[in-house]
């Protein structure tokens, strides 16, 4: 059998993505990971590369709305997908309360793990309105923090969950968090 004609070469491949709501095109090598592409081509350096093996969670982004590791996916695989990074989530304001609470409770020191922590927290609170501390810890099991310790991070997420629930129950009269 002859080799299929349309196997891409090892050379550069043109991919199109919607990153933080904007259409972009990049030229990547097949072996470039999504985190390589975001950081090096698109200069979105909020997504961090730590272990590059799926163990630390510093590289989390949202792919079509679900958190995935940017280091465990090749950029070519994301061709046609919607990617939201920590920059996009920050700009849109959807995690402003989480960011403020992390700051208030000293849930970060060097900040290296923080983007991944916030993406995990954001996804958890999207699916579970009032997670127990146990559930929060479980959700964070793939995110390593080397400085702060997890107590303050869990506190911050629990506090935001409580505040959002209080706001929601006040209905239309609820003030902003």
């Amino acid at each position: 059998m002859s080799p299929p004609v349309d196997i891409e070469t090892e050379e550069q491949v043109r991919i199109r993505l919607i990153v933080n709501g904007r259409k972009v095109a990049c030229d990547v090598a097949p072996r470039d990971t999504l985190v390589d592409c975001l950081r090096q081509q698109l200069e979105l350096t909020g997504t961090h590369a730590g272990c590059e093996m799926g163990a630390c969670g510093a590289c989390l982004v949202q792919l079509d709305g679900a958190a995935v590791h940017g280091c465990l996916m090749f950029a070519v695989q994301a061709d046609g997908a919607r990617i939201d990074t920590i920059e996009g989530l920050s700009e849109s304001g959807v995690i402003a309360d989480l960011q403020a609470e992390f700051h208030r409770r000293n849930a970060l020191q060097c900040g290296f793990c923080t983007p991944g922590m916030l993406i995990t927290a954001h996804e958890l609170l999207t699916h579970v309105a009032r997670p127990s501390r146990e559930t929060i810890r479980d959700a964070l099991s793939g995110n390593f923090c080397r400085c702060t310790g997890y107590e303050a991070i869990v506190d911050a997420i629990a506090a935001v969950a409580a505040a959002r629930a209080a706001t929601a129950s006040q209905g239309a009269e609820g003030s902003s968090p």
Partner: protein
Amino acid sequence: MKARAFSYFRAHTIGEALEAHAGAGDDVRFIAGGQSLVPALALRLQAPRILIDINHIAELRGITRDGEWLRIGALTRHCEMLTDPLIAEFAPLLRAAAPFVAHPAIRNRGTFGGSVALADPASEFPAMVLALDAEIEIAGASGRRRVKADDFFTDLFETAIAPGEILVAVHVPLFQAGQRIAFDELARRRGDYALVGCGLLATCQGDLIERIGISFFSVGDVPTRARHAETALTGNRIDAARIAAAQAALDADLAPADSDDVPAAMRLHLARVLLGRLLGRIGEAA
């Protein structure tokens, strides 16, 4: 570390993927969720020349009822195993195992079929497929076939899938009234691979066990059915004496190797403890 350079091909049908593999020689890998493959490429444990992406093959998706079977498409993500109502109703043992598979973001991407195809002896799903007497549907150049789980896991990371073949779906017998399941694992930290794990499916008549499937993971080179323990339980009521007999029978079922941090005797001990707990749970449900 970074993967060695490779070429990339996105397949849209099973036929296209099989053809691409056949035409490309030896040095080719399919990529599904990539949650095991990409780290292996980054560490250069593997360095294929070509990657064939199977994520866009519609036929590998979906969970459907098919007579007495539940068909679980290979591309079903681990997170769907947690949330799909058909899995919860008809394959509750897989639902019970799913929260123990890795971490949330890995579950968003990793696939059920990838886990079964990889056949990591420390993984939850391959062992549960074995406990359930499931059948694995495989597509190759010479057509389709269904392999019983018993004949599927052949050696360490080796399965009945030949190079170039694709795991299409796993077919699981529907969960029936009167059946009971239990699952648990002992790990150092949540989300880590287990020191020992076990799941079981028991078919009961009142409090009598008519049939039972018990599988262990992380106790050897392959997911392991505990046949002697099953025999000790079949036709009996679960009481302390029966549980002790089943635990003792594990000596004949499991032959864990010594590893750097866990002596074989300790793993066997943990397996007995775990089996005792699971049998206690289904005994209470009687």
